[in-house]
């Protein structure tokens, strides 16, 4: 163990977590290959990383069951005091209708703008023609 070990151990933790900068990986590996204390620390952290990954994989294995518990409780829960409706389709249709309505409104405004502008130009032309 030497004076660099404290700093290297921080970097070992980062290396195990996959957040160590590429440029520093070789420095850490070189140190670990020559320092038994840091090598042992690295092996211990790797083993803990595997244990943690296993523990969380176990949670993931239970996740489906936990989700199903929520969903079955949900089906026993009253809604908002009115009859439930299958409304995904309706929501989708409403969404599409809203989008088409917005597009139609924009087209109507643009068309009206052109009609008014053309009429206005035509009237100015008529006025100039009468004046001349």
């Amino acid at each position: 163990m030497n004076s660099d070990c404290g700093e290297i151990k921080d970097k070992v933790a980062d290396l195990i977590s996959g957040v160590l900068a590429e440029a520093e990986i070789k420095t850490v590996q070189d140190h670990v290959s020559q320092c038994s204390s840091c090598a042992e620390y690295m092996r211990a952290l790797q083993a803990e990383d595997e244990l943690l990954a296993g523990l969380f994989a176990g949670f993931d294995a239970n996740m489906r069951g936990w989700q199903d518990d929520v969903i079955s409780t949900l089906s026993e829960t009253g809604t908002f005091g009115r009859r439930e409706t299958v409304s995904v389709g309706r929501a989708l249709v409403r969404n599409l209708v809203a989008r088409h309505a917005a597009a139609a409104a924009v087209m109507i405004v643009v068309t009206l703008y052109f009609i008014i502008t053309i009429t206005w130009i035509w009237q100015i032309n008529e006025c100039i023609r009468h004046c001349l």
Partner: protein
Amino acid sequence: MNDFSDDILVAAGQRGDRGAYALLVKRYYREVFAVCLGILGDVDDAEDIAQDTMLKGFLKIRKLRRSERFGEWILRIARNLCIDFLRRKRHLRLFLAKQAAEARPTTNRNHDLEAAIRRLPAEYRLPLVMYYFDNKSAKSIAEKLNISHSGVCQKIRAARKQLHKLLTKEVRNE
């Protein structure tokens, strides 16, 4: 139906459609559980609060204005329920008593690990739990916790070092 965007499912959920809300449960339960476990440190408590969160979400969904932000909204509910839960437990002085009981060394490796995770400070535990639930992506955790990437790396490093100390202490005590 799995391809529907959040806002479509939220809109349907707001009309009382449990089927649509069930899809949101499937989409977000994992993240909600990770946050609960990160804050509470206890698997059973995290499971209970994650359930409560999803059920409360269904009952309150009509109040959600920005349906595309369902994810943020449900995680905020989870955090608030966890804080309420800890406050209640602390108030009853049960939380500390349970922690002391659980701090006793056990022979089961997973129990050691769970107990060590539970004893980590919440500020380190949450990023560590999310790290393992989020495919080990520090970038994604930084976005979700609204802290810098280097901040997440520093917390994960600190969590790992502290966890190692706790686990080696447990082994020595056996």
